[in-house]
């Protein structure tokens, strides 16, 4: 045991370099900075929006229409121009993303039930999500205007009637059910919110797996490149202890790095999802449906992540034996990346339950898939699938560790190489 701890300490010492610490601190700093900027940008995006308005009509209706916009989260700003072309030039040079041009005679045309079209101009000033969202406010503006005009019209024609009831005689109350839990809310809003809250789990999982695997493969490749492996293999310690120490050290350092990344990423994402969720008033509904992660859920998820990491490390250990040097180790990480990308995209863009049988078999055969699916299964209360996934990963890990142990206890650790030519044997 002492020898194992001795080796483990050295492995950790080799991995925790100044470069690693600097990279982690730098990454945290970048995430913090990006998170702060994003948070303030999102606040701006979901806050009051400035809208440029050229009112060529000047009627009572057009004036009250512009005034009504102020009541629904917009700040109308009048443009002093004689034509829509001139107004466009003014707004183009300004900061507003939307220009409304209410034509002359608009009020009279509405009264005659033959409304003249209001021209709307959306300025795309950036292709960022927040930038596009600012330009998309047009839809809301038109809805607000239509509502205002039609309500006014109905009130004038049918005094005492409720315009809302007349326009929408059929109303719905939307409920969402997950197993025995139920809450009132829109399914698309809830699904969108939950996916935005959990989208970081697979990303982090992918990051940890790739990062830890790369460390193991590189650790073995560096032993080979620096010609230290042969000496290490002749010291009085079991080969299984060597394999385990390398895996454990990489796993611990990988996990530590992942925690740093996760904290940074969480701060960054909370700037977007937190503000939007609160604005949409979804937090209570999500809680009612049990879609917020509980303490026990986090433990299960962490266990699942840990099993996935162990599988990745064992696989990387075997791949590392094939590496001749550090450079070839970078290529050998590819199979691990592929095995992570397949479940990542399959679970992101498809419903695993409706996949074709071969695709489903492929998905479930990849051990990492079970960690990707664990989040969904946790929310859906499908604990059977979670337990099956963890058992499968445990079995997969056990097989790989035995295989890695055998390789390290045999000549293969020195002779097994990925070579596209004739094998070279030193006699």
């Amino acid at each position, binding site marked *: 045991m*002492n*020898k194992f701890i*001795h*080796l483990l300490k*050295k492995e950790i*010492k*080799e991995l925790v*370099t100044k470069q690693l610490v600097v990279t982690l601190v730098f990454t945290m700093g970048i995430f913090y900075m990006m998170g702060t900027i994003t948070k303030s940008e999102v606040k701006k995006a979901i806050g009051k929006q400035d809208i440029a308005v050229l009112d060529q009509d000047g009627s009572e209706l057009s004036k009250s229409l512009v005034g009504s916009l102020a009541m629904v989260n917009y700040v109308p700003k009048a443009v002093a121009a004689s034509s829509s072309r001139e107004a466009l030039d003014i707004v183009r040079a300004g900061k507003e993303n939307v220009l409304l041009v209410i034509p002359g005679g608009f009020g009279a045309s509405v009264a005659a039930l033959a409304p003249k079209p209001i021209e709307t101009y959306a300025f795309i000033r950036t292709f960022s999500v927040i930038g596009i969202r600012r330009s998309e406010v047009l839809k809301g503006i038109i809805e607000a205007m239509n509502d205002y005009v039609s309500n006014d019209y109905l009130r004038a024609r049918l005094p005492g009637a409720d315009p809302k009831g007349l326009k929408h005689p059929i109303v719905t109350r939307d409920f969402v059910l997950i197993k025995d839990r139920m809450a009132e809310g829109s399914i698309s809003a809830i699904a969108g919110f939950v996916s935005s809250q959990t989208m970081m789990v697979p990303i982090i999982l992918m990051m940890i797996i790739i990062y830890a695997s790369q460390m193991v493969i590189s650790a073995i490749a560096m032993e080979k490149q*620096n*010609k*230290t492996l*042969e*000496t290490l*293999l*002749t*010291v*009085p*310690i*079991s080969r299984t202890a060597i394999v385990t120490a390398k895996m454990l050290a990489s796993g611990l350092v990988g996990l530590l790095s992942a925690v740093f990344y996760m904290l940074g990423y969480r701060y960054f994402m909370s700037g977007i999802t937190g503000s939007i969720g609160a604005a949409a008033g979804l937090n209570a509904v999500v809680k009612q449906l049990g879609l917020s992660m509980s303490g026990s859920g986090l433990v299960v998820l962490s266990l699942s992540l840990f099993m996935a990491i162990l599988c990745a490390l064992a696989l990387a250990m075997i791949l590392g034996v094939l590496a001749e040097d550090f450079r070839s180790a970078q290529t050998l990480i590819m199979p691990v990346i592929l095995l992570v990308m397949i479940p990542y995209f399959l679970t992101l863009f498809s419903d695993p339950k409706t996949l074709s049988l071969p695709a489903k078999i492929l998905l479930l055969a990849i051990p990492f898939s079970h960690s990707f699916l664990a989040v969904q299964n946790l929310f859906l209360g499908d604990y059977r699938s979670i337990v099956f996934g963890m058992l499968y990963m445990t079995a997969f890990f056990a097989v790989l560790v035995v295989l890695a142990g055998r390789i390290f206890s*045999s*000549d293969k650790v*020195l*002779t097994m190489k990925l070579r596209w030519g004739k094998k070279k*044997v*030193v*006699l």
Partner: protein
Amino acid sequence: MASVLSVQGLTKLYGQLEALKGVSFEVGEGEIFALIGPNGAGKTTTLRVVATLLSPSGGKVTLLGRDLKTEPEKFRENISYLPEEAGAYRNLKAEDYLKFMAGFYSDDPVRTAEYLKRAEEICGLGLRLKDKVGTYSKGMVRKLLLGRALMTKPALTILDEPTSGLDVINSLEVREIIKRFAREGISVLLSSHNMLEIEFLSDRVALIDKGVILDSGTPAALKQKYKAENLETVFRSALR
């Protein structure tokens, strides 16, 4: 002289290639035994098998009565191996590297300190031991590794081209150190292409070619047998 290492009928197959075809020899206590032969003769394979890096396909290898196949870890407690192309962990300070390697042989701080002192004497690197291995020249690394190999005074030291990469002065020093340790009872199994080195160091020599030991004996006996002035001529005559 009591036998420390016994190699009997050792065979090694790499797929279809038979690298060793029944190699047998013994190394006595404090004896320096050398393997000489052309490239591809099976010297490194023999050394690697004895160092427990490669598993033998057949035959028996025992060290102080312990079988290599059945007790590999116990076997390793009594050997140290210096490969021809060896390195040390570049991120570690040289003294930390020695401490790390010593840690596999003893938990006792007094004994570890003794190992480190011995290694320092062998290396002769002085204050440079406080520097990282990555800053060392090839020759310095070689001396550090020799210190590592001999510091625990193993029953058997396996040296593959021990002076590889060293200049003349350092080579002479290293040879003296190996001789001194052999006198103190450490057995040495070595391989070298330098016949002068072999002649200077070895008590006995085995000539190996194509996985077979052609002849063995003391350098003097071999020279007499082949009527040669030096081992180079012996080597050439034996191969004919």
